[in-house]
C-alpha cells in the first residue's frame, strides 16, 4: 500500500503516531508484554508443592528436548500438520481450478460453499466430524452396507486429519483462487494451440503461476494445523495429544505453567522458522524467475 498524501504540513509528522497510539498501546500491553513475560516464565524453576520459583533454569527446555513423551507429541503434531498440508494442497488446488472454470452464478455459489464454513465455529465443525465418524455414524453405516466391519475412527489420526483438512481447505482455496484470477487464460490457450498437451500446459504454464498461491496457502495451513487445539481436543481424545492440548494440560491440570510456557514458546519458534524458511524459498523462486 502506498501513502496517498504528500506530507504537507509539519504537524503531519506527529499525526500518524497519534492515530496509531491507541492501537500501539493495546498491542504493547496485550501482545508484546505478555509474550515477553511468558518467555521469562519458561525459564523459571517450578516445584510441584510451592509453584513457580524466582530461579532461572533451562530444565523445561531440556525436558522438552530429552523426554520421549514431548518428542512424540511434537513429532506427531508436525507429521499430522504436514499430512494435512499435503492433502489440502491435493484437494484445494484442483478445486480452485475447477471453481475458476465455472460460470456464474455457480462459480460464486460454490466458492461460498467451499470457503464459508470458515466462519462457522470450529467447535461445531469438530462436533460434526465426531458424529460423522462415530461408531453409529453415517460413514460406518455406509461401510457396513459394503460389508466392512465397524472401523474405529474417533481418537485416531484419521479423524483428526480429516477434520483438520475440512477446517484448513478454505485457507488453501483462497490463495490459489486469487493467483488463478491473475492468470491470463489466453496463455494456457496459446500453449494448447502450439500443440502442448493438456498435461504439459498444466505443469509448464498454469502450475508455475499458481505456485506462489499454493506455497502461501501451505504456510498458513501448516501453521494453523500445528497449533490447532479444538480438533485434537475433541477428536484426538486423551491418548492422541497434540502440542496445543499438551500445553492446555500443563496449564490447567498439571498447573506447571513454566513447562507449558516453554512448550508454547517452542511451538511459536518452530512456526516462525517454518514460515521464514518458506519465505526464503518463495523469494528464491521469484529471483530465479526474474534473474
Amino acid at each position, binding site marked *: *500500500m502506498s*501513502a*496517498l498524501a504528500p506530507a504537507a504540513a509539519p504537524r*503531519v*509528522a506527529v499525526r*500518524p503516531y497519534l*492515530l*496509531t497510539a*491507541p*492501537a500501539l498501546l*493495546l*498491542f504493547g*500491553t*496485550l*501482545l508484546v508484554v*505478555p*509474550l515477553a*513475560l511468558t518467555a521469562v*516464565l519458561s525459564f523459571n524453576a517450578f516445584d510441584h508443592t510451592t509453584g513457580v520459583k524466582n530461579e532461572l533454569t533451562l530444565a523445561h527446555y531440556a525436558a522438552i528436548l530429552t523426554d520421549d513423551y514431548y518428542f512424540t507429541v511434537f513429532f506427531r503434531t508436525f507429521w499430522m500438520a504436514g499430512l494435512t498440508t499435503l492433502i489440502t494442497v491435493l484437494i484445494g488446488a*484442483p478445486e480452485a481450478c*475447477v471453481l475458476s*472454470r465455472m460460470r456464474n452464478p455457480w462459480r460464486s455459489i460454490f*466458492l*461460498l*460453499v*467451499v*470457503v*464459508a464454513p470458515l*466462519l*462457522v*465455529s470450529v*467447535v*461445531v465443525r*469438530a*462436533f*460434526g466430524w*465426531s458424529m460423522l465418524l462415530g461408531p*453409529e455414524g*453415517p460413514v460406518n453405516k455406509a461401510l457396513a452396507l459394503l460389508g466392512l466391519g465397524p472401523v474405529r475412527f474417533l481418537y485416531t489420526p484419521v479423524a483428526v486429519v480429516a477434520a483438520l483438512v*475440512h477446517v484448513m*481447505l478454505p485457507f488453501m482455496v483462497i490463495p490459489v483462487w*486469487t493467483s488463478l*484470477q491473475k492468470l491470463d*487464460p489466453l496463455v*494456457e490457450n496459446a500453449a494448447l494451440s502450439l500443440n502442448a498437451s493438456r498435461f504439459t500446459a498444466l505443469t509448464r504454464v498454469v502450475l508455475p503461476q499458481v505456485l506462489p498461491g499454493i506455497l502461501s496457502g501451505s504456510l498458513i495451513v501448516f*501453521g494453523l494445523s500445528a*497449533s490447532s*487445539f*479444538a480438533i485434537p*481436543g*475433541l477428536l484426538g481424545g486423551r491418548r492422541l495429544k497434540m502440542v*496445543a492440548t499438551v*500445553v*492446555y494440560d500443563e*496449564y490447567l491440570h498439571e498447573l506447571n505453567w513454566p513447562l507449558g*510456557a516453554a512448550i508454547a514458546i517452542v*511451538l*511459536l519458534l518452530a*512456526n516462525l522458522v517454518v*514460515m521464514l524458511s518458506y519465505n526464503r524459498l518463495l523469494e528464491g523462486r521469484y529471483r530465479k524467475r526474474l534473474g
Partner: protein
Amino acid sequence: MTRNGPVALAFHALVVAFMLAPLVIVCLVAFTPGDTLSLPTTGFSLRWFRAIFVHPDFVQSFWNSLRLAALAATISVAVAVPAGLAVARHDFPGRDFLNALFLSPLIVPHLVLGVALLRLFALIGATGSFPWLVLAHVLVVTPYALRLVIAAVVGFDRSAEQAALSLGASEATVFRRITLPMILPGITGGWLLAFINSFDELTMSIFVTSPATVTLPVRMYMYATESIDPMMAAISALMVALTAVAMLLLDRVYGLDKILVGHN
C-alpha cells in the same frame, strides 16, 4: 476458456459433499426425537432445542459471548479506523513495523496468545475479569477490522476531501461528512467480521475465561469433552443459523466474496 470435464465435476461434487457433511449432520441430528446422537428417522422434534433453555449456564454463556463480541468488535473498529488511516495515508518511520505488529495476531497461534495473556492477567490480578477479556478479544479481532479499513481508505478518491477543504470546511467536518461515510462499508464489514471471529474464538478464550465469564464456544468445548447428547447438536445448529445470518448481513454491507477471497 476450458470447461470442466466429468472427472473434474465428480471431484468437485465430492469436495462440496465433504465441506457440507459435518454442518448438515449437525443440523439434522439437532431435530432428533431420540435420546442419543442419531439421525431422525421417525420424525422431527424440537425437544433438544427446548433442553438448551433449561441449562441456564448455556444461556448465560450465550449472552456473555454476544456482549463480548459486540464490545470487542466496536472497540476494535474504534482502534482500527485511526490506525488504518495512519498506515494507509501517511509515510512515516516505523510504518511497516506498526502495520506488521497490528496484523501479527493472525500469525501468532491463539494458543500462545492465551498462555501469554493468562500470565499477564495472573500478574496484574485480572484473572476472570470481563473488561480484560474484552481487551484480549479486541487484540485478536483488530487485524480483521484493520485490513478492511485499510482496503477502504486505499481504494477511495481524495478529490472530494480536497474540494471540501478548499471550500473552507474544517478537518473535523471533512472527516465526519466525507471520509467516514466513504469508508463506512469497510468499517461495517470490519465490525461484522470482528464480531464473528470474536464470537467463535475458542483457543485463547479457554485460557482466560473464568466460570463467570465463560463464552459459548468454551462452554460447548467443555461440555463436548465430558458428555455428548443431542443438545450439543441443537446448540451447534443454532450457531450455524446465527453464522448464516451474520454472513447474509456481511454480504449485504460489504460483499461476502470480497471479504473471503479478496478483491477481484
